[in-house]
């Protein structure tokens, strides 16, 4: 010690903490004081069953004995809030002053340990700390080695520890029992003591692998107990006994498992039934319920009343007053839906492409007929290299389909099944014959059972919450059938195969103008999954394509009438750039300028315009590649060098986009430079009128204003939108960025303005604003608008913001030409979009396809769970709500993470297991086993209780309806274990059994528990009468006797 050296300086040495054990004791005392266990008031007797239903709390501290680390834990039953005020006060440590009162009161009452010892209300708690179970304590302290590997085996160390504890308890006057754990951790051997002012309680334990047979019953145990008490008092007060025997039922003779769920068996057989790929499988493969533990309890018997010895036993389970049942569930039973989902999830990690997966099939194939293959190879070699062009769409198509046809025999999905699935996905592909079938299907969905009706609300909520796709949509169906195919027909290869077929069908439908059935029309629904949106988009493309082609047909007839080649005055500053000119092909050829030189082109226009004022001018833009018009390609439009390009630009990179804008800006300014005035009245005929715009009259001409037919803005899927948002965001928040963004988005505005101009010859921006953005038109007060005035009259003015020089609206207005919507450049290039989508679909790796279909799969799985939930289990309700909430979140997350799906699928599997258990229990406790009529309700109550609680006491014990069912189950199991084969008497096997004396109704109890209690003066006959208790549990190869013996410390 440092003090030794400086002894001259510091005379004081603290000798009280000189040795390790003294330090240990003082630390222990410190902890006890810290937990306020000193002068701890007595607690009343614990209420019935509070040990399992109440809250247990723990406090822990570390403590060292030399270098040996212990963890000291105070474990206590929380006193319920409704407890007496005295208790509450004394519990709160701040109010120690009032504790005297409590002490006074408690003088009359028994110390907590004694109360606990003799309290019979909590004899066999099914879930509690072992010390609580053995000694019936509601509060105790345990000191155990901090690490599981540290063991106290040495006898002298044990003694030293116990005496240290004894000193600490005496010093602090703490009345809470304190235990120390000895021997190996798993043996749970404790030794403990409780110190009170006038007595002590010693807790001792025996743990044996084998018990001598003379003690293996109540009589022997009583002998031990009495011997230990060593009481000489007579008459000796009787020992009260509580007994519980536990019987295990493992064989469920009446309900053998696996009970094949309908879809399970059929799919295993590889049967290609229709129901097969339409619904996900559900149910457990093995029995989710493994064992039933029946505990028969005899509470508080007197030792004189019962006899149990080696040859005779009074303890017949059928005579036991209390029966309780616990169900042992199979750990992690294999369930079909969960298996399916896990399987699917694994596919997401696969990186193979479709070609890699199906390619090997192809090579296998070509091995079969090598000759043909070689000749083909030769042919390929000899073919002139010039002919290697880009393969046209049709050749690729035919190749793809032919390739598929070649390997049809070896394809993972048999042709027959494939056709059936495709028909299921696209019911419209079949003829009238199928419509009947469809009708019947609808009927099916109408014929809802009550259970299903109950679930309907759930389903509705589900389809709103989950970002997947509607249940009857093709994407949903595809997801389900794809994963069934995955499970039963060769995994990812089958998925790749089916997907390839699906993509081919998509292309076929696009090319032949068939709508994709099972996908609702209209704008892509952002609340659905991306794949669904893509298909919706494809439908949009098909719709436009059909319309366009119809329009084209219609126009070829009356085209000449629309070929009006006029110049129109538009504003005070007439835009000179000639518009709306449809060139004769010859002329177009003459003037046509290559489209790569847009700027030059405009300059040329300028010159020409000045030279040929009255002539049509046009810059010819070749419409073959980029610029497609509503009308046929041969019809050339006049040079429109407006920022329409911005619309397409969005999809391009930022840089490219800016270039385009700059380009278009410069050209449009050029265009406005070329403006020259032409006085006169509008000459072009109005085109593309939709409907009159209220009573509004054109300001200048006073004619009726018309709302034009306009182009709908391009529909967008969410990835397109994100891409666009990103491009917009990348421009930054500077004023330049703002302006650029406005330019980029002006395509729609321009289109609307052009349509408006076409529909309202002679209109002005003011007119447009009055229709488009009415609040930017400020009518002059006091002056009644005079509709009849044909001359421009100042009846109002544009708002301040519309008058900002060089603002977007004015600029676009000036560059806008009177072109009806149908002849404008398409805002929505359906051809390109459709190609993009098809490319997206066909380029997807099967693993990615799976990931894209996961939302629908999850949706389908949840529906499946709900459908199967025919029992009203509150626990399941909660779980389902959790699953749905979680699913909604996971599916909406912008980044689809497999990890989060894993959690979700675990939850779904759990729900499946709960349902499977419920079903299993229902089949086990069938109503057929009931004797009494009208007891079904009681049985159902019992089963639902079993699902919700770990231990259920049977109402009416062995005589109740549930009890008799369990009795029958045991008889049947005994019968089968004794290999009795009497088929005839199976129904009333109970009767048969009672007649055969050799076979008992119940097996030997697998566990026996006894609690022996008595009041006896100890150690001397003149000592105070104190309670004693011994708990015994006898299980095969594990016998434990735990005794709590009190000791009078005054009169001994």
């Amino acid at each position, binding site marked *: 010690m440092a003090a030794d050296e400086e002894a001259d300086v510091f005379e004081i040495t603290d000798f009280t903490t000189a040795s390790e054990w003294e330090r240990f004791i003082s630390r222990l005392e410190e902890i006890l004081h810290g937990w306020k266990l000193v002068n701890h008031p007595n607690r009343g007797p614990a209420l019935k069953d509070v040990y399992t239903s109440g809250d247990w709390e723990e406090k822990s501290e570390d403590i060292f004995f030399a270098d040996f680390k212990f963890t000291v834990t105070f474990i206590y039953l929380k006193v319920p809030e409704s407890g007496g005020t005295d208790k509450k006060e004394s519990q709160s440590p701040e109010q120690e002053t009032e504790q005297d009162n409590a002490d006074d009161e408690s003088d009359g009452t028994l110390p907590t340990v004694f109360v606990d010892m003799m309290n019979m209300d909590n004899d066999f708690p099914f879930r509690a700390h072992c010390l609580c179970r053995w000694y019936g304590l509601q509060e105790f302290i345990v000191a155990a080695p901090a690490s599981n590997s540290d063991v106290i085996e040495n006898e002298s160390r044990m003694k030293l520890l116990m005496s240290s504890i004894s000193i600490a308890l005496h010093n602090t006057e703490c009345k809470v029992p304190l235990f120390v754990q000895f021997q190996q951790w798993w043996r749970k051997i404790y030794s403990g003591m409780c110190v009170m002012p006038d007595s002590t309680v010693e807790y001792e334990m025996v743990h044996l692998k084998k018990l001598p047979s003379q003690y293996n019953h109540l009589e022997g145990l009583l002998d031990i107990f009495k011997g230990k008490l060593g009481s000489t008092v007579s008459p000796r007060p009787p020992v009260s006994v509580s007994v519980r025997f536990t019987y295990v039922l493992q064989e469920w003779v009446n309900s053998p498992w696996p009970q094949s769920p309908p879809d399970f068996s059929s799919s295993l057989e590889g049967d290609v039934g229709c129901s097969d790929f339409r619904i996900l499988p559900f149910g457990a493969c093995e029995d989710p319920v493994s064992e039933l533990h029946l505990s028969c309890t005899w509470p508080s018997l007197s030792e004189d009343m019962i006899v149990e010895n080696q040859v005779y036993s009074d303890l017949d389970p059928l005579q036991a007053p209390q029966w309780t049942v616990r169900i042992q569930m199979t750990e992690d039973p294999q369930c079909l839906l969960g298996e399916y989902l896990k399987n699917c999830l694994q596919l997401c990690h696969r990186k193979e492409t479709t070609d890699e997966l199906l390619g090997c099939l192809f090579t296998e194939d070509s091995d079969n007929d090598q000759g043909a293959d070689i000749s083909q190879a030769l042919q390929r070699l000899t073919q002139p290299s010039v002919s290697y062009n880009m393969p046209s769409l049709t050749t690729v198509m035919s190749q793809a389909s032919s390739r598929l046809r070649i390997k049809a025999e070896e394809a993972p999905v048999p042709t027959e099944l494939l056709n059936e699935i495709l028909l299921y996905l696209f019911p419209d592909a079949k003829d009238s014959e199928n419509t009947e079938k469809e009708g019947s299907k609808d009927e099916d969905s109408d014929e809802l059972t009550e259970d299903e009706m109950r679930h309907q609300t759930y389903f509705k909520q589900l389809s709103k*919450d989950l970002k997947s796709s509607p249940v009857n949509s093709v994407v949903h169906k595809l997801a389900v059938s794809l994963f069934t195919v995955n499970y039963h027909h060769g995994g990812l290869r089958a998925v790749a195969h089916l997907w390839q077929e699906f993509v081919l069908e998509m292309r076929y439908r696009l090319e032949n103008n068939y709508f994709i059935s099972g996908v609702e029309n209209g*704008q892509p629904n*952002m*609340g659905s999954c991306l794949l669904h949106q893509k298909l919706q988009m494809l439908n949009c493309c098909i719709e436009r394509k059909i319309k366009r082609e119809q329009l084209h047909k219609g126009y070829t007839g009356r085209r000449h009438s629309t070929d009006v080649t006029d110049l129109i005055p538009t504003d005070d500053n007439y835009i000179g750039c000639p518009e709306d000119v449809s060139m004769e092909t010859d002329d177009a050829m003459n003037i046509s300028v290559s489209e790569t030189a847009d700027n030059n082109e405009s300059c040329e226009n300028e010159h020409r315009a000045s030279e040929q004022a009255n002539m049509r001018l046009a810059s010819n833009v070749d419409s073959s590649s980029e610029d497609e018009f509503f009308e046929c390609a041969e019809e050339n439009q006049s040079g429109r060098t407006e920022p329409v390009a911005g619309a397409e630009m969005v999809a391009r990179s930022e840089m490219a986009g800016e270039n385009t804008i700059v380009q278009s800006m410069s050209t449009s300014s050029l265009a406005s430079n070329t403006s020259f005035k032409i006085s006169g009245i509008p000459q072009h005929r109005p085109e593309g009128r939709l409907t009159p715009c209220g009573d509004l009259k054109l300001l200048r001409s006073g004619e009726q204003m018309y709302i034009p037919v306009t182009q*709908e*803005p391009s529909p*967008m899927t*969410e990835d397109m*939108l994100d891409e666009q*948002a990103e491009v*917009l*965001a*990348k*421009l*930054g*928040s*500077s004023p330049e*960025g*703002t302006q650029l*963004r*406005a330019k*980029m*988005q*002006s395509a*729609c*505005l321009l289109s*609307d303005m052009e349509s408006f101009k076409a529909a309202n010859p002679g209109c002005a921006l003011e007119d447009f604003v009055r229709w*488009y*953005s*009415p*609040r*930017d038109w400020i009518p002059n007060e006091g002056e009644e608008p005079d509709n009849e005035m044909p001359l421009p009259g100042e009846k109002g003015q544009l*708002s*301040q*913001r*519309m*008058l*900002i020089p060089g*603002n*977007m*609206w004015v600029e676009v207005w000036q560059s806008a030409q009177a072109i009806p919507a149908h002849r404008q450049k398409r805002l929505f290039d359906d051809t390109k979009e459709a190609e993009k989508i098809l490319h997206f679909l066909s380029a997807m790796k099967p693993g990615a396809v799976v990931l894209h279909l996961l939302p629908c799969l999850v949706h389908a799985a949840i529906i499946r769970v709900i459908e199967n939930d025919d029992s009203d289990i509150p626990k399941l309700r909660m779980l389902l709500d959790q699953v749905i909430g*979680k699913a*909604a*979140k996971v599916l*909406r*997350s*912008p*980044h689809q993470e497999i990890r989060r799906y894993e959690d979700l699928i675990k939850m779904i599997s759990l729900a499946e297991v709960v349902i499977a258990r419920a079903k299993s229990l229902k089949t086990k406790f069938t109503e057929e086993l009931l004797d009494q009529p009208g007891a079904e309700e009681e049985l159902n109550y019992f089963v639902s209780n079993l699902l919700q609680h770990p231990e259920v006491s049977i109402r009416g014990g062995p005589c109740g309806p549930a009890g008799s069912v369990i009795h029958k189950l045991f008889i049947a199991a005994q019968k089968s274990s004794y290999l009795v084969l009497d088929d005839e008497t199976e129904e009333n096997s109970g009767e048969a059994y009672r007649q055969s004396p050799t076979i008992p109704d119940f097996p030997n109890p697998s566990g026996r528990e006894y609690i022996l209690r008595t009041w006896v003066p100890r150690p001397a006959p003149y000592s105070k009468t104190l309670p004693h208790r011994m708990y015994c549990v006898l299980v095969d190869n594990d016998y434990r006797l735990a005794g709590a013996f009190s000791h009078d410390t005054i009169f001994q």
Partner: protein
Amino acid sequence: MASANDSKWQKDAADQNFDYMFKLLIIGNSSVGKTSFLFRYADDSFTSAFVSTVGIDFKVKTVFRQDKRVKLQIWDTAGQERYRTITTAYYRGAMGFILMYDVTNEESFNAVQDWCTQIKTYSWDNAQVVLVGNKCDLEDERVVSTERGKQLADQLGLEFFETSAKENINVKAVFERLVDIICDKMSESLDSDPTLVNSQTKGTRLTENPSPQNSGCQC
């Protein structure tokens, strides 16, 4: 803050210098002052007339909330009827909405219910909405009383402010309140969406209570 860094931010588009990013949307009828409101907040500037927004525009502002940098990406939308389809597409993914009307314009107030329906239809369930009556400096021209605004907000279950972008009344309060509500909602949900959290500081969560806010109308 953000306004000073604009040019810098522009260069470094993949700016990771924040803990959370909230996407907010300002919606409401045409010319109720959405753009002015945003400019007042982001740039602390006011012009009597901004060019009518075409399509959708945005500004960025970074705020601090309990030592966390919250980057606000505030989207400003065109109010014209014709732009509805375009702008509603952006509702998805927005965590907060500022629904604005003009206290001097009855029509814009009457449209609030409509806008609310739009939000319900197109946005995520957990999106937070604040109702804002703008131009409260124009007392002479006022046609929608504060009480009516409050009443409507109560009816729709929204927070309510009256503001003036011109006089800079309550502009900051609106955004602060909206950020607070969003943060509360985030802490509330048990497993807050990790995608909201910047990857660098994954796992951090807001748990403290929001600083008390003056949510009442100050004018």
